[in-house]
């Protein structure tokens, strides 16, 4: 079992948790050492996996999933711990590893209870990594829950502002989503055996064998899509996101917006669309309307917010709406764009939240009306914030542009008027994004200094620089050389697109 490389993505965080458990409560150095070693190991593992994966693909290994493995867990319900990755999961693992790595450095000085904070943080990462390596719906769901629950404590204990309210709201709304999801998954499970054979949770087996009845597909599609859509901040189930992000501590915002929200999008295409293609073809229009609203609605809402985190949370609603929107376009290019957008949004929002945390740690306010001219005072953070902003508004050379353009060009392949109208609305969001990003940049970084006390503030420390540089390099890397990622993703979409087209 441990010879499978993928298992280690779950094992390493668990080892980290054990290591943290051995540390003393106040032993900050030991805690940091465990976290840095662990997250570096995860990053190295992710890079190694990526290289291995690309080599295997280059060598012509054409299986749907690589590095597969399956171990029986609970026989009566045929639950396995089944793992396997395609190009998309590899990239998602990579993204998670990068953000865990950057998040470790961004929470270098977390107080109080650093040990407990990192314990929950590791548990959250276990859930995230476990989700992306699983190809068994049940274990996938389990890891999904493992990732959600720590969020409650992380926000409730280490957060700021109305943290109890936000933590509760976030957890309850996401749990509500999970309830729908569980129904959907159970439905798929009970219909996964074509002629009374053994039911299965394995996604690959279901996609090969099952032919779920159309009427069932409609219902199950709605359940699973809404279930994952809640986590993907789909209108009107998005309100956990602004409050949750606003109150969460830096690293948690990073991990949540950067990775956890991607679980939603990932689940949507891996389960809702891949396993229920007929319903996806028929019912996509409902969710196109909802996600189309998300895109424009989130962007407009962001324009009038005054709290930095609220702005980014609404911007996440808009950008994650774009992910789901593109997935629903049901063609390779748009769906590839969706994955690119997940990566791009993950990195860029993580950077945003890291920077906001750093700025907040200095100024003790997130209200843009009380800040100004920070570029002069902390040029490094200012420049990073601008880069994050430019990535967000889709500047060529940074990741956001590549993702958005792929989405727009992919979506435009659907030639009917309905799709066209929504695509053009979605396109309009690039202008609104520019408006709110430049508004923030103008108020926060440029102009005269608002508060004389801010003049004494210092620029970034080395760990903050390390954290941000990691993210910026990745953002610029995707933005400048997108094609290898693009090809990897496109290749991985072949079975899904085939399933969709077969169901038309």
């Amino acid at each position: 079992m441990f010879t499978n490389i993928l298992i280690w993505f779950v094992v390493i965080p668990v080892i980290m948790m054990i290591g943290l458990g051995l540390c003393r409560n106040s032993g900050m150095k030991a805690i940091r050492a465990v976290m840095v070693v662990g997250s570096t190991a995860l990053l190295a593992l992710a890079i190694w996996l990526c290289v291995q994966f690309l080599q295997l693909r280059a060598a012509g290994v054409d299986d749907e999933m690589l590095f597969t493995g399956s171990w029986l867990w609970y026989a009566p319900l045929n639950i396995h711990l089944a793992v396997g990755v395609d190009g998309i999961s590899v990239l998602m693992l990579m993204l998670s590893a990068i953000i865990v790595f950057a998040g470790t450095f961004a929470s270098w000085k977390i107080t109080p209870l650093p040990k407990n904070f990192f314990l929950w943080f590791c548990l959250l990462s276990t859930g995230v990594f476990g989700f992306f390596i699983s190809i068994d719906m049940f274990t996938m769901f389990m890891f999904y829950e493992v990732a959600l629950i720590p969020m409650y404590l992380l926000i409730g204990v280490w957060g700021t502002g109305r943290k109890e309210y936000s933590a509760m709201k976030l957890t309850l709304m996401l749990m509500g989503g999970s309830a729908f999801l569980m129904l959907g998954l159970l439905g798929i499970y009970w219909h996964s055996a074509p002629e009374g054979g053994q039911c299965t949770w394995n996604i690959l087996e279901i996609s090969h064998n099952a032919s779920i009845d159309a009427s069932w597909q409609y219902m199950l599609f709605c359940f699973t899509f809404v279930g994952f859509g809640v986590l993907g901040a789909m209108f009107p189930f998005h309100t956990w996101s602004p409050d949750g992000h606003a109150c969460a501590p830096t690293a948690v915002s990073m991990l949540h917006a950067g990775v956890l929200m991607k679980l939603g999008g990932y689940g949507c295409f891996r389960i809702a669309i891949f396993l229920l293609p007929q319903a996806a073809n028929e019912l996509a229009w409902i969710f196109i309307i909802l996600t189309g609203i998300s895109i424009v609605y989130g962007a407009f809402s962001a324009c009038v917010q005054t709290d930095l985190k609220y702005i980014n949370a609404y911007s996440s609603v808009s950008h994650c709406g774009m992910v789901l929107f593109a997935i629903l376009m049901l063609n390779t290019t748009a769906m590839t764009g969706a994955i690119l957008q997940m990566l791009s949004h993950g990195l860029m929002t993580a950077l945003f939240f890291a920077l906001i945390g750093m700025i907040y740690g200095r100024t003790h306010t997130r209200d843009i009306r009380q800040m100004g001219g920070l570029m002069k005072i902390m040029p490094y953070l200012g420049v990073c914030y601008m880069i994050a902003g430019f990535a967000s508004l889709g500047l060529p050379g940074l990741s956001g542009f590549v993702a958005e353009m792929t989405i727009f060009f992919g979506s435009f392949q659907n030639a009917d008027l309905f799709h066209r109208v929504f695509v053009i609305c979605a396109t309009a969001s690039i202008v609104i994004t520019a408006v709110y990003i430049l508004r923030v940049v103008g108020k926060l970084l440029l102009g005269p200094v608002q508060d004389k006390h801010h003049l004494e503030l210092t620029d970034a420390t080395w760990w903050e620089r390390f954290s941000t540089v990691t993210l910026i390099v990745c953002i610029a890397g995707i933005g400048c050389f997108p094609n290898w990622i693009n090809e990897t993703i496109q290749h991985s979409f072949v079975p899904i697109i085939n399933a969709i087209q077969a169901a038309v």
Partner: protein
Amino acid sequence: MGITLPILILAIPVAMFLILGIGGVFMSRKTAGVLGILGMGTTMTLAYIVAFTYFFSGSPEFIVEGVRQQVQLFDVTWLAFTQKLVVNIGFILDPISAMMLVVITTISFMVHLYSWGYMEHEPGFQRYYAFLSLFSFSMLGLVVATNIFQMYIFWELVGVSSYLLIGFFYKLPSAVSASKKAFIVTRFADLGFLIGILVLSYYSESFNFITLTHNPESVLMSTGGATFMGCSALTWAMVLIFVGGMGKSAMMPLHIWLPDAMEGPTPVSALIHAATMVVAGVYLVARMFPLYCVVDASLTFVTCVGAITAFYAAVVACTQLDIKRVLAFSTISQIAFMMVSLGVAYDRPIEGIHYTGLGYMAGMFHLFTHAMFKALLFLGAGALIHAVHSNNYTKMGGLRKYMPITHLTFLIGCLAIAGIWPFSGFFSKDEMLAAMFANHWFWGAWMTMVAGLTAFYMFRLYYLIFWWDENPEYAEHRPHDAPWQMSVPLIFLAAVSCVAGFIPFGELVTWNGEPYHIHIEGAVAATSLTVAVLAIALATVMYRKKNEWPARVKNMWPGLWTAAYHRFYWDEIYMFITHKIIFGGICRSIAWFDRHVIDGAMNGMAWITQKTSFAIRGMQSGQIQAYVLWYFLGALLLAAVTWLALI
């Protein structure tokens, strides 16, 4: 030609940007300045080599039987959307891109040099040079784009460079808001551009300019008669793409950002907002010209927008006080001139389709000459501002004695833009007017009138700065000519403006690569010269010495004057739309809706749950006796039910 030179032309500026941007903080000003200037100088030399090889080597790679070819020096895949829609990054060499290489690198180099003097005492000198390099890179990438998507990529990059440079003095709120405005307005236009590309590429299944323009009819066929609101899909695509050009080139009604963009440092205005970036729209239309020709409705649209803008901007320019604003409106007007010239280049079909191509050549010619003399005028204005420390000409007057070099070069610029023989503007403007008259007398007459207005407001500006009445403040703060770094570019550009008209431009740059022999049309030349001279004479009478005439004219039509002074209230209209309607109306109501309706629904659910649990919590009294009672009652009930079920 190999790929080394073209790659270097793009790589050196971007390398300079990274070196100066990341390493700038560790450098002295001098190192940064020298590095920037040397980098740009090298790029300029390389660009000259490439352009001259293209035009004059006569190599069969570039010219076949007297027809100049479009050559892709390299074209590598950057991103593959689908099998067919592949975005490449490449380097196209054809008459217009070679010409633009020369224009951009020359002006950019001059501005680099000039800035060394102009920006000497400003903080953030290294950053400034980094941004200049970024802009040069983006602009070069834009003109050598082999496909429309590459153009869009660099189009956005020049937009952001422009944003960064306009907001260079980022502590001034006015600079911040001007940069924001510039970015958002052009972004809005780019939305049109993007949708245009989406439509065009969907039907034609290609981004590549050569594929698109070599067979425009097949592109038209590929749309398969798809129409939307009465216009063909291709018309829509071309008009939308032109909207992008309208934004960058500040055509009405998207012109509002350019006058505000003058908040940036003056050399930046010379480089970006006069000579290079703002002509990107013209370049775009020129690049896609064959496609515009097959859907002539879009070309008519270009003409109309250009004609209206040219007149509007010229009228406004007559009333502005800020010398940079006058130049900004003059730029808008001149670019509109080029647009009209391109718009009329399509002859109405008499026997089948044929193109005259005169307007195209003339537009490009004017682009070239205008870049030189407008950069000259802006740099001259920079020298004036440097000396007087104000943008406002009421602080100037009588400066000819104090600043002879600036005076002479500025005069040359004014003569060139007014279209006086033998300065460069005369030749290009004459060709453009000839093309307009050839299309329809109305366009010719209209634009001749604009040309007259141009001569008038430029000389108004000239007289108010250098003649009129001396500012008494000179006594305490005597203005003087600029240092050599600033004078050299002025003299160089003035010299170019004197001789550029004699370049046989028609032999070099035409729409289809075949040479066009320029011949001055006597009647048109005489008309435009007469109009220009009359306008200059009028300006001389009104503004040479301090007198009552200007005030009297102003009082004659006070309403018109005020409206023109306020730029016909376009900014106020936009302010109303953006602030009151979009921000106040849409954004606020959506935010309210989110907080109160959607969040309210969520909180409402929580509230209902809580209330319900409070309501039924009385049952949980903690009294075992009560529980036992309930239990036995339940047991009795069960027993009763069972008994009833059994009998």
